[in-house]
């Protein structure tokens, strides 16, 4: 597996599985993918309806989303560097499996969610 492919796979896994703290009225610890979804939905409201407060919240979500994307991209790159090049494919698979296993525990804290403040990956996107 190439380093580039490994980095992309890890980045995606981190986006969906790693609890990432962000602020928007209340503090959540959720996957960055959820933050992206919140940004998308709030952005849709801002674009269709406008509104001062919605714009502020949407802007905050957007900044944090970009930050999350960047930080997790850097983290994925760092992990790829650490992994042994000879067994990169296996190592990436193990890491992804570990992240997925983690995400199926109630590691996310989501005051905004219908699923409840403590949730796992399934609860978030159900």
């Amino acid at each position, binding site marked *: 597996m190439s380093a580039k492919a490994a980095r992309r796979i890890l980045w995606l896994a981190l986006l969906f599985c790693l609890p990432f703290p962000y602020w928007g*009225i209340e503090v959540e610890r959720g996957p960055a993918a959820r933050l992206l979804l919140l940004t998308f*939905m709030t952005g849709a*409201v801002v674009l269709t309806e406008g*509104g001062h*407060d919605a714009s502020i919240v949407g802007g905050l979500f957007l900044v944090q989303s970009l930050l999350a994307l960047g930080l997790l991209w850097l983290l994925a790159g760092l992990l790829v560097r650490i992994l042994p090049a000879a067994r990169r494919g296996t190592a990436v698979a193990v890491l992804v499996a570990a992240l997925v296993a983690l995400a199926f525990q109630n590691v996310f804290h989501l005051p*905004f969610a*219908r699923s409840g403040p403590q949730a796992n990956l399934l609860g978030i996107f159900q």
Partner: protein
Amino acid sequence: VRPLVSGLVVALAVTTAAAAPFERTETRTPCAAYEATRRPFFGDLHVHTAHSLDAATQGIRALPRDAYLFARGAPIGLPPYDDAGTPRRTLRLRRPLDFAAVTDHAELFGEHTICASRDLPGHASPVCSIYRRWPRLAFFLMNSRSTTSSPTRYGFCGPDARACLQAARTPWTDIREAAEGAYDRSADCRFTTFVGYEWTGAPGGNNLHRNVIFRNATVPELPASNYEASTPEALWEALRVGCLEAGSGCDALTIPHNSNLSGGLMFLLVDSAGAPITADFARRRAAMEPLVEVMQHKGDSECLPGAGSPDELCAFEKLPYQSFTAKFVPSRRTTPPPASFVREALKLGLAEQQRLGVNPFKFGLIAGTDTHLAAAGATDERSHPGHGGAGVPSATGLPVGLPDDIELNPGGLAVLWAEENSRDALFAAIRRREAYGTSGPRMVVRLFAGWSYPADLCDAPDRVERGYAEGVPMGGDLPPRPANAIPHLAVSALRDPGTEDAPGTLLQRVQIVKGWVEDGVVRERVYDVAGDARNGAAVDLATCAPTGPGATSLCTVWTDPDFDAARPAFYYARVLENPTCRWSTWLCNSKGVRCEAPETVGEGLERCCDPGYPPTIQERAWTSPVWYAP
């Protein structure tokens, strides 16, 4: 037989109508229990149900009819609900209320209905998607949009907001029907309801909210919300046009609340356009707002300790922020301005009376819960489940630790002195301000003011009759002053007896709070007039058991030692119980928290040991003032 009975009922109603000291605006069976010298009725005029967006987005399912059933003594289900729709918590009042009004936020009646109804256009809009998937986010976005000084409707409301206004008819009809269904029109007169709603203007996050209470079943087709009337003046005008002068028999008034969260805007001496208030404005405000809510779930608004008042007892259920915005953005917190508090407004009103000839802040005092769980009158410190709203949500799981934000409280009750438990009698009591508020307990408090009450009036068997005959009750104006007379205030208080399993607390003392204008400067002073502030009563903090002596009743005739006939003044009574445990202490004890043993402080219970919140409180009652004008 039926026509004969109906005829008798109508004849009786007409007969009573002629005799009643208040106008009867509805046809109903006369109350069997009628007392010319009036009785206290306990109730709650500030109740939210699932028709309020900020309740619905917290998983509240109870509707107005559930709130009224609860107020009459039935249990109510509280969130969270399990998959079968069964509530995981229930609550029941130890004693039913005499009256209640559901006052849901009117601003988003239509939007909320559309977002929750699959078959209505707009259901699929991004806003409604957020409403369904991220209710807490919707709570913030939708509320903040609807409460600004120039609110705009969402696009899915359509031209002239027709879709949202049409959808708003569904909850408004339900509110009206629930009030009608729960109103006891029989001769028993056990329970009275009022149709009402909350107008929710909050420019810049500063609370200007008012509850609108209608006298009878004749109400406007739709409520005037912040969208239709985005200032208090516009609200009064909308009520004038749509109700008071509509020629339909409609009558209404507004009750402001949470001035403590108004950032100083609730009692400004300028109107919404920034112009100094005029005599006409003052007259309109005084006519539309005979009462103010002095205390509720989101804190006490009586007075500000420290800069605002030297009164130490003002330090009661105070919030550490001055507006809604400051609650959510701690960096914007400042000390609330004195003008956010009712006592300051009462003082300013005296000065305005001198300037304009009219007092714009001639308020009587009540309290309420502002429950967002439909739990009308749920003020018990022993079993506070939180009231939702601005507090801790419980839509998706039982709150971990404290069920409410530590700075909030279970709220209080409104008490009205009326001849009978009917809408007209209670509404008349509100209009004449013969009302008081309590922080939850049901102590019975009377206040009369006159010029010549004898010192032994408390012992007279006809003291109430003489109270009325020789003076005025709470809420009134002292009659013209005889030469060289000084005000005599007759005040009496009976402790709340409580119930067998939850006995009430003994009384500690009665105070008279006086405000006056002296050389153009407003002043205040608090007098202890009965009871004993140092009676030695205390509380065992480990068990919450009260100890020490207290009074079951207090009564005195007090004369003002500092009276100056040239200075306008007001007087109101404050009745204090012996100290008892605050709700947070009851709860923290039940969870086994001992602050000296950190290992006993579980998750979510950290604030049990916050020194900023006292373990005990002194429950209290505040009467409406009486006013003296030179």
